């Protein structure tokens, strides 16, 4: 332990009551301190003999003090100033977005319309796209007209879920067809715009052509009187792609591997099936759960948001996609899908 200093030893001689027990015990057991004490005891008392207890002021002053000698950070003025500085710094950091308070996430509303189902990925950045048929999404009077226009069996549920009332608005879209010719040069330019270099193009890819077809499709939308959609039932011929020479998958996977592909395009491409067998809807995994159920012997994918305020079910059968979606529970959209069959 620490040796008591000279002032303590002096006090032990002249004002023993002012010496802590721990110091006394230390001195008793410490030859070094006893020697020091012997020297101090031999000297005359600097202030004369004390008359009143505690009159030994010189010793009292020179003795180590803890009171009033607080470390700097424990002084209120220092602490308050430090706090204010930190607060101001944090406020400035937040105001300048160095310290973000909220995690920004792009929230995409789960909406399905005829145009979504008969949409093709926009690949014009990676080659020439020649649209041979553009689909013409338009509203029609009723289901019969829609059936005539699309040649599809119109999905009309006989019973509607609770809260879904009125007549649906009917939208149809014709077949969309486009031919995409991959261009390595165009892809290199797109990559350069994103500040990246293009990975080598596989042999035979440059100039290869892919024909993509989607639709026709029909969508029935029931709306709440306030305007928000309450149920969407849609059916469309699933998109397909065919190619001469290099397969569509090769083209797709290569485009996906390119740097700087926009996220929504990538999602759309990944979901774009070559054979119309997979789900053409991107599911935001962080706020929805998806599961597979069997409806009429055919698997269907059910997507439901975590708080169950939105649900959708998608079934693909014989190259035809049927979607039921809305601010409903999963059981309700499934009931509608079962009703359709």
């Amino acid at each position, binding site marked *: 332990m620490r040796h008591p200093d000279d002032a303590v030893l002096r006090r032990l001689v002249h004002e023993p009551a002012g010496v802590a027990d721990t110091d006394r015990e230390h001195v008793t057991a410490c030859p070094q301190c006893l020697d020091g004490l012997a020297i101090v005891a031999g000297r005359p008392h600097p202030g004369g003999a004390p008359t009143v207890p505690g009159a030994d002021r010189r010793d009292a002053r020179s003795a180590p003090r803890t009171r009033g000698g607080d470390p700097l950070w*424990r*002084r*209120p003025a220092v*602490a*308050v100033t430090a*706090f204010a500085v*930190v*607060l101001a710094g*944090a*406020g400035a*950091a*937040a*105001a300048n977005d160095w*310290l*973000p*308070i*909220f*995690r*920004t*996430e792009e*929230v*995409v*509303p*789960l*909406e399905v319309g005829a145009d979504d189902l008969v949409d093709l990925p926009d690949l014009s950045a990676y080659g020439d796209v020649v649209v041979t048929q553009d689909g013409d999404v338009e509203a029609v009077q009723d289901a019969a007209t829609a059936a005539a226009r699309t040649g599809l069996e119109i999905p009309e549920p006989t019973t509607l*879920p*609770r*809260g*879904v*009332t009125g007549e649906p608005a009917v939208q149809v879209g014709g077949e969309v067809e486009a031919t995409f010719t991959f261009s390595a040069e165009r892809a290199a330019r797109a990559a350069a715009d994103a500040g990246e270099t293009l990975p080598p193009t596989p042999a035979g890819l440059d100039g290869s052509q892919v024909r993509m077809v989607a639709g026709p499709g029909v969508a029935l939308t029931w709306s*709440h*009187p306030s305007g*928000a959609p*309450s*149920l969407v039932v849609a059916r469309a011929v699933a998109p397909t792609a065919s190619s001469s020479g290099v397969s569509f998958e090769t083209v797709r996977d290569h485009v996906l591997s390119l740097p700087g592909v926009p996220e929504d395009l990538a999602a759309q491409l990944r979901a774009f099936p070559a054979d119309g067998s997979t789900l053409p809807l991107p599911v*935001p995994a962080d*706020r*929805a759960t998806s599961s597979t159920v069997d409806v009429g012997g055919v698997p269907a994918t059910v997507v439901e*948001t*975590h*708080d*169950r*305020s*939105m*649900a959708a079910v998608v079934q693909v059968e014989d190259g035809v996609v049927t979607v039921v979606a*809305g*601010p*409903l*529970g999963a059981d*309700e959209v499934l009931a509608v899908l079962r009703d359709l069959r």
Partner: protein
Amino acid sequence: MTGVRTVLTIAGLTLREARRRRVVLALAVLTVLLLGLSGWGFSRLAAESGLDTLTSGQARLAASQLLNLVMFGLSLIAALGTAFLAGPTLAGETESGIALSVLARPVRRHQVLLGKWLGLVTFGSAYVVLAGLAQCLVVLATVDYWPPRPAAALALLAAQTVVLLTLAVLLSTVVSPMASGVVAVGLFGATWIAGVVGGVGAAFGNEGVARVGTISRMVLPTDGLWRGAMHGFQDSAAIAQVGAEMEGFPFLSDAPLTGAYLAWAAVWVAMVWGLAAISFQRRDL
């Protein structure tokens, strides 16, 4: 070890005080009243409007907003309760002289302060979590809505209470018991309003106004934590569905909190507690 014993003794004493002073009873009565009222409201919502005009999802979205409204009421009760409990238990005791005989024991003041704080934190958090859970169950029973992240939301609600309580503890070491409660609750309200103003600013694309909310959330993290809690009670996808016109609405929150902000809230609590300890340490009784 004696330090730990002192802290735990004082924490236990604070909890006993809350019970004996009928704070628990008053809060329980208020809460049961609020739960009953909200239960009735939710069942009416389900019975009257839910039947034909709202789909189940829309009803749940409405429920989630009502849930947040009631949760805000709960957090207000918790804030008022703990702030007005923190005042008397510290400032009141030093004023009345109860602290004299306690602090003349071989205890350090910061241990006593930590004990008080710990007791209040336990009390406030337990109240918020229990009452919030009860509210969620009421909503589940009446409109069949269960929030997406209830645990995180309740934890953030408790954290909000802890932040406010720490502020009340600091204030009660500086000003009178009554004033400390009033100031703490006033600041809580001011930050909430600043948050709403900031939200409106963000909705209208006015960065200067939006910054008001941001800065106030840093200065006193109650509003930020509250918005984080709200986010846990409702799904952002559903809000996106409602559309952009609802942006800035004080009972909607479309984004979760960042880890950095949660860390800041913890740092904030530690700093304010440190200030309270320094202030209490130097106080002449």
